[in-house]
């Protein structure tokens, strides 16, 4: 029994926000699904550019049909700090709202359940969501405090609770922020799903996920919610001590796709992080494609937009060779 197995067996895996262990493991990456996945990389150097046309182009390139669907936009809303780049920029949300409406979605809502801060509405206010998203108050749901329903057999739990707004969506669009992360290495479209777990049931932070395991939870959430699409906000990203205390990193891209594993693997390569060294991506390899040969890159090439993100000393081993 290695140290990790001992940890799990002992029931002491505190995990996550304050007890991740300095342990390494490298199981072989399982084969991905049959075929390949399209990932679109589109340049956008600032939030004042025409983001709607870029999103329309990315969605077309990835072959997503949203007609008649109930769409839930899930931004990454984390912290009161409008001067930095912690949260998904409001311009990305406004553009996504317009994009999905114009493509014939039956309804487009916005929902988020921040992991640490409880005052979601004022957080959205501070991030200028209320000021910039038309009719925001009628569109937004605090997923931490939404009505909930049980779901069977999630991540080994006989019963797990999710917000009804999430369970009722036909398509969940992960409007993630491209950031480094001091527990997961990187936080992109897949980890953004932590925000669909209700704090009113699991707390602030959602400590149950830490016990399941951060990587394991990311994978389980993405296994549970398969009707998804990703639009990663890398226009001004975050490097260094992310996801909160890092520094702005202009990467000038939006990265989109239906295969969130492939989207996150592509984002990692743009950040010059090796996706095969990110635990959750290794564990999610049966859900999507990590290997570049199985990812159909649309729009820009990775090489043309690649930029080195600063990493904490503890994560230097993640650097893409």
């Amino acid at each position: 029994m290695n140290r990790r197995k001992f940890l799990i067996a002992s029931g002491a895996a505190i995990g996550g926000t304050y007890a991740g262990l300095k342990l390494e493991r490298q199981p072989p990456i399982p084969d991905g699904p049959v075929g390949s996945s399209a990932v679109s990389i589109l340049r956008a150097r600032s939030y004042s550019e025409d983001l709607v046309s870029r999103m329309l182009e990315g969605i077309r390139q990835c072959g997503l049909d949203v007609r008649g669907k109930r769409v839930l936009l899930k931004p990454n809303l984390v912290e009161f700090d409008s001067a930095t780049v912690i949260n998904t920029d409001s311009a990305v949300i406004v553009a996504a709202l317009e994009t999905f409406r114009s493509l014939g979605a039956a309804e487009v809502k916005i929902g988020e359940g921040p992991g640490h801060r409880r005052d979601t509405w004022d957080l959205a206010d501070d991030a200028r969501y209320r000021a910039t998203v038309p009719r925001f108050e009628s569109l937004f749901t605090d997923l931490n405090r939404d009505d909930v329903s049980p779901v069977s057999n999630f991540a080994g739990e006989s019963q797990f609770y999710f917000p009804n707004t999430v369970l009722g969506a036909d398509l969940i669009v992960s409007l993630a922020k491209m950031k480094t992360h001091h527990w997961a290495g990187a936080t992109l479209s897949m980890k953004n799903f932590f925000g669909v777990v209700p704090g009113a049931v699991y707390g602030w932070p959602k400590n149950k996920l830490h016990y399941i395991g951060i990587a394991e939870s990311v994978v389980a959430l993405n296994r549970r919610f398969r009707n998804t699409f990703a639009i990663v906000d890398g226009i001004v990203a975050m490097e260094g001590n992310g996801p909160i205390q890092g520094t702005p990193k202009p990467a000038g891209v939006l990265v989109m796709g239906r295969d969130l594993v492939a989207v996150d693997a592509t984002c990692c390569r743009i950040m010059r992080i090796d996706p095969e060294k990110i635990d959750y991506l290794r564990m999610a390899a049966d859900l999507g494609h990590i290997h570049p040969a199985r990812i159909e890159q649309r729009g820009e090439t990775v090489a043309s937009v690649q930029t080195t993100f600063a990493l904490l000393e503890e994560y230097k081993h993640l650097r893409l060779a």
Partner: protein
Amino acid sequence: MYLESRLQFLRDSQNADGGWGYFPGKQSWLEPTAYAMLALYGQSAAETAVDRAWRLVASWQVADGSVRPNGAIADGTWVTALFVTLACVRGVQDRNTARAVDWLLRVVGAEHSLAMRAFSYFHLLKTKLNVSHEGWPWREGNASWIEPTSLTLLALKKVARGHGLPELAYRVREGEALVLSRRCSDGGWNCGNPNVFNYDLPSYPESTAQALIGLQGRSANELAAPLAAARRFRSQTKSSLAKAWLAIALRCHHEALDAPTEEARSCDEMLAALEALAHPDGNWRLLAEEGRA
């Protein structure tokens, strides 16, 4: 007007089952129900409403003594502390209250396990967390955090007024020690993790307020820096929730604060209840300590 507008909103938004949701027309949850009950407590116009809410909350207790956070959820959580606080405020000292207290005394944050203490001893954690003290988690089997620990301290200190249980006194001491050990370098508290990879993490205003509520009775000297942080936060925070918690905490620590004047602009029922509690003429004293273990 400030206080009455919130109380009227609460009176108008009670669900048919007797509880309050986080937002109007939504499922009843124990957390907003508890704060609404405290905000309305003692008001003759709301007496029936509060009694109905208590019956609903009491019906959510499960076999192990814990209390469920809402009727759709199978197992009990940290909100058991709020149930005990409500019971103490209402003067209910029955078997069900005792079962809830027993559950709180039985539950310990999982980071205190022998294995985790061993990992901490050998510096195998990413954090500088002191895992030697016993606090309370959001859910049984998880780690301790500031909010559930602080609110459980409040509940147990109210219980301690009428009981001399040595186990209760021990858990209060341990809980206070845990909270004190997790203070951030800037003087306040965040959710419960002050440092990662040798980087100090910032404190949060609402967590700082809750910790101060849990630490009522500790010496003014010991709490000087956190109280200063709370005062600073109160003048700076953009969070309405944090402002309400900070006002309650500072009043509980005998600080005179001006009455707020902002009009309610939210349909958040829990926020309305906390803002009502935080008003100088509100029921904030119900969250003040009453006796020490």
